[in-house]
């Protein structure tokens, strides 16, 4: 828990009093920054105890990029033929180059327009083989066609190849079919060829095998967006590829070659190598081509962009070779960053989109480049492109922004915000139906949402849109459900995941943010629906569910203070002195706790009923919106998650939600506390004390503490949970089997303190659980002042029960063991105590059922997520259910062992 919380928890502090009174609610927010799928993802978990304090943890996860495989291909012996066919090959070479994106990089060839085009086409047909289904030849033809325009080009190519390196023809790689045409294979650098050739092959019909093998590897990339993302992986390499495209674009399109050209060396190369004649020639060509260009381009461009991207990705693996080649070839160079950024403003759309795509690749996992882009004022340009009508342009711009927005450098995020990037993203979200673009937008927003100062901005501009455009439609929730149709299930799409992650982050931005989210129409309803759908489908381990639960937990924080009209529900009894509550409490005790022990299940059933009828408020109309947050029905949902989810974050959040809901002194928290018991939630929680996850144990321990505000819960928890609580404590000699953090240990100690306060029976249970030894050890030897203090409080409370001293003395303990150690601050402890007392006030009186509530009828059904309070039998029995029942029942005897009840007999115990 957050630091603050901890403090609060520790009894010793004066603050503890306050805390104790109100069992802490913790808002923990987990912020996950997401980048591109392929990109490393940083998960930032922010824990906010109150609005105030926040802790962040960021973890970076780097995903594997597939591109690597390509590298292997590379050095293929160029020519099986052993062809050093430098000659006519040029065109071919270009092909090959294009084929291998990697190669492209290396080879100056790429620059050759033809190549570029080829790449484009390929890219189009990412499914290389299939798309190419046509014969490779056809492709060639196309290229040629292009070339033709360039007629000169071919020759040039030839020259290029020679000039570049005499490489054996890539033929070898290329299927035979290619040879003929390509035979001209360029003597590209071997390395390049090797790589290139193969990839190309796929495209070409000729080398099927090669193609296949490679294609598979590449396949992932082919997908446009994915590629981009992936491009991340390949990042660096890609640039090279891009360039070729760009260059081509420039050349062709822009007679002047524009800035791009001029700047770029590639251009130079182009002319020389490819035969792009000198500028004049080019100009001519261009002119001539224009027709082509339009035709060609339009087609290629549309696709090409992707293609380029894809090619980039592929290239990725190979980077080094390409670099080498580049280095070797002085004529060639990558466009530098200012050039790329300048290209974002290029009049030709494909150039823009390619430039943006290139930027995305460059930025992948490269904080320096991101920073440079920012300083070169590239971000406003990218943001401006979001409003571009062409989907390829705004998509690529969005992709670049997503990468830029990822990472620890918050300045990048701020830069996006400062040029109104957030409203622009939201605008685009409203406008586009392209799923990929939506993923990119929401991914970017998720990234942005990890930075505190931007959270409110996102809320202001995007909350309702995100809810309406993504959350509600994907959650399956419908405003006015059509009675005929059955409820829809949630769809765990990437867009939903990203959006819920974004909202999860912003939901941690304090009271105002929580208010906004709670009041956002349809949000809570949709989240609940999605979660219920997840429970229904038993699909509870995914990230989207985690995000939803975290939002719910955050929104549940301080509901009793922050929700409109909360005053009306403040529990008057809470304000009363403990004494006044006494009578009611007794009633409970009679019926519940003790009754439970002696009586058998039947009785419990009765209690349940009375509980149902008595306690739950009648509702005239179905609750909606934020009211849903604290309706007792949610308890079932959270308990289902706690029972079934394997995701620690989800478990923690669900326990945290119960913790938040059971805090506070208003009517609803009373209901919640009772409902948790009635739904047999206590055993579920206790079971989770054995979790391997530190944070789960902690959240559960604190939830139990809040739940024990209810007297009846306290008795039950004291009886059933003590052993598990104690077993989580470090023993003197060894640090715990599970290495629990200080926070967790302190939380457990505080929970124990809460449970034994005002209950000598629970204190007895504690002794029975052999906790004294551990407590004394912690008190004396713990390195942590907070642990020491917390243990000391428990010990003092135990010692305060005179009736127990006898037993303690028998066990060899004496007063000195229960006094604060020298180091501990006695003062604090003293102060702490009173606080506890307050906390212990029994708030609940109505529930009479203890674990007994477990009446049989509910067993299987209870966890139903169903909205109704009614138990749904349909519910399949939770897997844990059986255990749980067993646990509970058998536990009774165990309790007796503990002594709280005098019953002893263990189930089976045989003398031998």
């Amino acid at each position, binding site marked *: 828990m957050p630091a603050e919380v901890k403090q609060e928890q520790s009894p010793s502090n004066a603050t503890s009093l306050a805390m104790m009174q109100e069992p802490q609610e913790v808002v923990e927010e987990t912020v996950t920054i997401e980048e591109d799928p392929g990109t490393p993802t940083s998960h930032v978990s922010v824990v906010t105890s109150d609005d105030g304090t926040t802790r962040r943890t960021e973890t970076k996860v780097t995903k594997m990029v597939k591109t690597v495989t390509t590298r292997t291909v590379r050095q293929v012996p160029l020519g099986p033929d052993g062809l050093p066919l430098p000659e006519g090959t040029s065109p071919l070479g270009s092909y090959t180059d294009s084929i291998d994106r990697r190669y492209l990089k290396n080879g100056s060839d790429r620059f050759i327009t033809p190549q570029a085009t080829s790449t484009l086409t390929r890219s189009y047909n990412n499914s290389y083989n299939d798309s190419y289904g046509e014969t490779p030849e056809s492709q060639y033809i196309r290229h040629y066609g292009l070339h033709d325009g360039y007629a000169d080009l071919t020759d040039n190519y030839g020259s290029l190849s020679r000039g570049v390196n005499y490489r054996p023809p890539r033929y070898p790689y290329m299927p035979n079919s290619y040879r003929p045409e390509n035979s001209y294979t360029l003597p590209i650098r071997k390395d390049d060829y090797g790589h290139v050739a193969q990839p190309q092959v796929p495209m070409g019909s000729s080398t099927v095998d090669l193609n296949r093998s490679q294609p598979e590897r590449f396949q992932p990339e082919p997908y446009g967006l994915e590629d981009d993302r992936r491009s991340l992986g390949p990042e660096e390499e890609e640039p090279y590829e891009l360039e070729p495209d760009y260059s081509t674009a420039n050349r062709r399109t822009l007679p002047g070659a524009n800035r791009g050209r001029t700047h770029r060396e590639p251009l130079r190369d182009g002319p020389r190598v490819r035969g792009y004649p000198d500028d004049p020639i080019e100009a001519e060509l261009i002119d001539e081509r224009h027709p082509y260009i339009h035709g060609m381009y339009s087609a290629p461009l549309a696709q090409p962009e992707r293609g380029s991207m894809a090619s980039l990705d592929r290239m990725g693996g190979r980077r080094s070779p390409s670099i080498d080649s580049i280095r070797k070839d002085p004529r060639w160079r990558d466009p530098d960053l200012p050039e790329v950024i300048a290209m974002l403003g290029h009049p030709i759309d494909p150039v823009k989109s390619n430039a943006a795509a290139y930027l995305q690749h460059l930025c992948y996992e490269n904080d320096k480049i991101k920073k440079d882009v920012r300083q070169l004022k590239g971000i406003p340009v990218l943001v401006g492109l979001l409003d571009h009508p062409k989907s390829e342009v705004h998509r690529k711009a969005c992709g670049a922004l997503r990468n830029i927005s990822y990472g620890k450098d918050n300045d990048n995020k701020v830069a996006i915000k400062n040029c109104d990037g957030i409203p622009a993203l939201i605008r685009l979200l409203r406008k586009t139906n392209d799923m990929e673009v939506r993923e990119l937008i929401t991914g970017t927003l998720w990234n942005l949402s990890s930075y505190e100062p931007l959270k409110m901005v996102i809320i202001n501009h995007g909350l309702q849109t995100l809810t309406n455009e993504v959350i509600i439609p994907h959650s399956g929730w419908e405003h006015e459900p059509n009675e005929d149709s059955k409820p829809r299930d949630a769809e765990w799409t990437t867009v939903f995941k990203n959006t819920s992650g974004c909202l999860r982050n912003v939901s941690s931005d304090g009271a105002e943010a929580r208010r906004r989210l709670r009041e956002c129409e349809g949000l809570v309803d949709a989240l609940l629906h999605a979660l219920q759908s997840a429970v229904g489908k038993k699909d509870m381990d995914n990230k989207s569910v985690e995000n939803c639960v975290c939002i719910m937990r955050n929104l549940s924080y301080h509901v009793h203070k922050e929700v409109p009209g909360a005053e009306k529900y403040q529990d008057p009894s809470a304000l009363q002195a403990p004494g006044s509550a006494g009578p009611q409490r007794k009633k409970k005790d009679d019926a519940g706790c003790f009754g439970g022990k002696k009586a058998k299940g039947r009785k419990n059933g009765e209690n349940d009923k009375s509980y149902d009828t008595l306690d739950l408020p009648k509702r005239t109309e179905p609750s909606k919106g934020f009211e849903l947050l604290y309706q007792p029905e949610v308890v079932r949902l959270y308990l289902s998650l706690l029972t079934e989810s394997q995701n620690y974050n989800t478990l923690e959040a669900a326990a945290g939600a119960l913790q938040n809901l059971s805090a506070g002194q208003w009517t609803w928290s009373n209901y919640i506390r009772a409902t948790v018991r009635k739904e047999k939630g206590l055993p579920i929680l206790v079971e989770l004390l054995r979790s391997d996850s530190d944070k789960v144990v902690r959240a559960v321990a604190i939830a139990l503490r809040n739940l024990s505000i209810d007297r009846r819960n306290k008795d039950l928890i004291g009886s059933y949970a003590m052993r598990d609580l104690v077993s989580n404590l470090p023993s*003197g*000699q060894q640090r715990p089997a599970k290495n629990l953090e200080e926070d967790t240990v302190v939380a457990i100690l505080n929970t124990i303190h809460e449970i034994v306060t005002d209950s000598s029976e629970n204190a007895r249970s504690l002794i029975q659980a052999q906790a004294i030894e551990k407590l004394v050890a912690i008190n004396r030897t713990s390195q942590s002042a907070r642990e020491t203090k917390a243990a000391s409080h428990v010990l003092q409370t135990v010692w305060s029960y005179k009736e127990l001293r006898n037993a303690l003395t028998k066990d060899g303990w004496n007063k000195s063991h229960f006094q604060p150690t020298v180091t501990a601050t006695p003062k604090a402890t003293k102060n702490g105590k009173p606080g506890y007392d307050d906390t212990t006030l029994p708030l609940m009186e109505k529930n009479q059922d203890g674990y007994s509530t477990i009446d049989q009828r509910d067993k299987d059904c209870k966890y139903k997520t169903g909205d109704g309070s009614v138990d749904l039998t349909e519910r399949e029995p939770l897997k844990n259910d059986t255990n749980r029942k067993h646990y509970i029942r058998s*536990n009774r005897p165990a309790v007796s062992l503990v002594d709280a009840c005098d019953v002893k007999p263990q*189930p089976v*115990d*045989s003398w*031998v």
Partner: protein
Amino acid sequence: MSFVPGQPVTAVVERVEIQKLRQGENLILGFSIGGGIDQDPGQNPFSEDKSDKGIYVTRISPKGPADLAGLKIGDKIMQVNGWDMTMVTHDQARKKLTKKKEDVVRLLVTRKSLEEAVKHSKGCYPKP
């Protein structure tokens, strides 16, 4: 003392040899056991790991054979005459201990204090 089924267990064990005592027709060992794979491990007050379904010594009759042999309450019985006791039902354990043909049982037991002693010797938290 938790363990993963199927995985080797490392435990500090002590051998305890108990000479059965004849009481009337019965041979007794003078202790009682709890646990077993058919029992609820959550109720076992002696186990560290509440999912441990092993056989534990729950009671010892003073001055009885087990007491004299050094068995302690809370000991976990790992083996009886070489038979594994970590994955048996309660009744199987009982039967292994009460074979009328055998006058002596050799137990392999582990207990927390043993583990701690070992750990202690390696240097750990001072014992309170």
